[in-house]
């Protein structure tokens, strides 16, 4: 997904483990008396921040504003280019192609996200507890796919899935199970989910592991004295105490899933009857813009998608504030 996840999935910013700090930081600078330099050098602060500010305006604010403006207009051969207000949005939310993409991504997320985060949590609990050589190899191996571009991850799995020379098929053939069409209608979403899980489990595991490592050890000792086993310690102490990291990994995974693009795009040519141009909302927006030159409508879809992600993550953070231990 990478989208995310990564940009595409890939360039997505890694989450910090405790959002609490982030939300508190704006206040942190307000120490009484500690401002000497800051007050003297107002201009300096602005100067240092100005390159970032320029980029922020040019490559975040301007594209968003422009996408919004475009999305309010309609351009037709007959009618020319004119304001149509929210007509494109009306079309978006009644467009069966868009809605089927949204449904597909939702189904995908409901199954894949818990599976992947569960696996990541399991891995994190293991490497937190075990410090053998095997555990070290385990940690590195699981993290390795994160260094692989999503395109290459999808290419490798695409080959492995291949009905002509992929090992999966030769194995099931030799077992007498016949052909399994991993790239057919029935299994495509599962196959895509496997690629994403392979790529991102290790990354999430390391984030959760870092959070586990930050917990005070005395708590476990106390639990041990009280007779709690490893299972109980994990369920009752460790998992609740890293809930803020869990919430963050969940949020970043959701953002990545909503942008799902790279993997279906790569497998598109292999299975063009299964991966249609509207397979995911993001793929649909891309194809509308670059295959059909429907820039206005494409902008409406991009903007809706961006808005959903943005508002969704704010609400999500807000709703889980108590649970995630944000003060």
């Amino acid at each position, binding site marked *: 997904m990478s989208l995310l996840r990564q940009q595409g999935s890939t360039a997505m910013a890694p989450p910090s483990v405790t959002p609490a700090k982030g939300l508190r930081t704006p206040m942190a600078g307000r120490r009484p008396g500690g401002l000497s330099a800051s007050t003297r050098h107002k201009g300096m602060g602005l100067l240092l921040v100005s390159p970032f500010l320029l980029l922020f305006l040019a490559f975040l604010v301007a594209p968003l504003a422009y996408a919004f403006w475009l999305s309010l207009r309609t351009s037709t051969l007959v009618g020319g280019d004119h304001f149509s207000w929210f007509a494109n949005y009306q079309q978006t939310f009644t467009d069966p192609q868009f809605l089927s993409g949204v449904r597909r991504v939702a189904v995908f997320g409901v199954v894949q996200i818990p599976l992947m985060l569960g696996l990541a949590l399991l891995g994190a609990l293991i490497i937190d507890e075990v410090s053998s050589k095997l555990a070290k190899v385990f940690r590195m191996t699981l993290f*390795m796919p994160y260094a692989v571009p999503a395109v290459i991850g999808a290419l490798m799995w695409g080959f492995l899935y291949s009905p002509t020379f992929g090992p999966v098929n030769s194995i099931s053939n030799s077992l007498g199970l016949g052909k399994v069409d991993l790239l057919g209608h029935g299994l495509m979403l599962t196959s895509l989910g496997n690629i994403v899980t392979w790529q991102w489990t290790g990354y999430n595991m390391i984030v959760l592991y870092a959070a586990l490592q930050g917990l005070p050890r005395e708590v476990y000792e106390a639990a041990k004295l009280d007779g709690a086993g490893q299972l109980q310690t994990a369920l009752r102490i460790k998992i609740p105490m890293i809930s803020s990291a869990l919430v963050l990994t969940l949020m970043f995974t959701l953002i990545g899933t909503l942008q799902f693009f790279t993997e279906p795009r790569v497998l598109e040519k292999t299975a063009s009857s299964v991966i249609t141009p509207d397979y995911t909302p993001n793929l649909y927006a891309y194809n509308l813009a670059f295959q059909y030159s429907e820039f206005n409508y494409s902008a409406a879809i991009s903007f809706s998608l961006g808005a959903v992600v943005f508002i969704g993550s704010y609400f999500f953070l807000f709703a889980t504030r108590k649970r995630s231990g944000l003060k």
Partner: protein
Amino acid sequence: MTTVAAPAVTAAPATGRRPSAARSRVTVNVVMVAMILYFLLPFWWLVVAATKDNDALFSTAALWFHSPGAFLINLQELFTYNDGEYLRWMGNTAVYAGVSGVGATAVATLAGYAFAKYRFPGRNLLFSSLLGAIMVPATALAIPTYLLLSKVALTNTMWAVILPQLLNPFGVYLVRVYVQESLPDELLEAARMDGAGELRVLWSVALPTLKPALVTVLLFSMVGTWNNFFLPLVMLNNDKLYPLTVGLQSWYEGAMIQSGANALFTLVIAGSLVAILPLIVTFLLLQRYWRGGLTVGSLK
């Protein structure tokens, strides 16, 4: 795959009784080995497949070597195919990752330091919008950015890939947190007392302290650019400017269209292997910096 075995690891209570402790140890090891095998599978396949010629690729067992000598031929083919376009893509990728990475790190350092140590009008507003910006999906920005850049004739140039990736809000956040936690005001104040100007303080007092954070930001932004697919795909249609990700995908598409009856498959495979090697090496060598980036929020 491994999920079935998963719950077992925690299912063995460590009550201290020997047999159950040993059993749970074995279960944990089995789970780890199973997961290692699964996560290594594509890498193993890639290495094996890169040593096969086109015929062997289709006719021999996928997970074992057949004609290792073909690896060198594949490599030679890879670097010379179509006037060596693979090398050109590799060079492009290095330029994109290098320029964007260094640029983004420089911008993020200045801004993060300013957010942490100076007060200026609009500071809090800008910082909260920066936190929001981390959540704006990059793919939603790519298409409007493309349209805007096409108005100033910058699409289909290297700048179209480099400029948008100079913006790295998370990097700014990371530097800010790091500055606040590791650079006391007193240190800066002392340098000022000695008569150092603001830039001098930044250059010779702040930067050396911030080095680990800068390496982390640099790593994340370089790898982000190296792996990026959507942005260059949208921005470029001249294949001379492609980075590796877009180039390999175009080869793969070409191979698919010709339904495997040509040598492009072996090129895609060898090309994928060569493309991920530098990343994995950097990765293993610079592990502690990676972890630095992932744990920064929990620094005490």
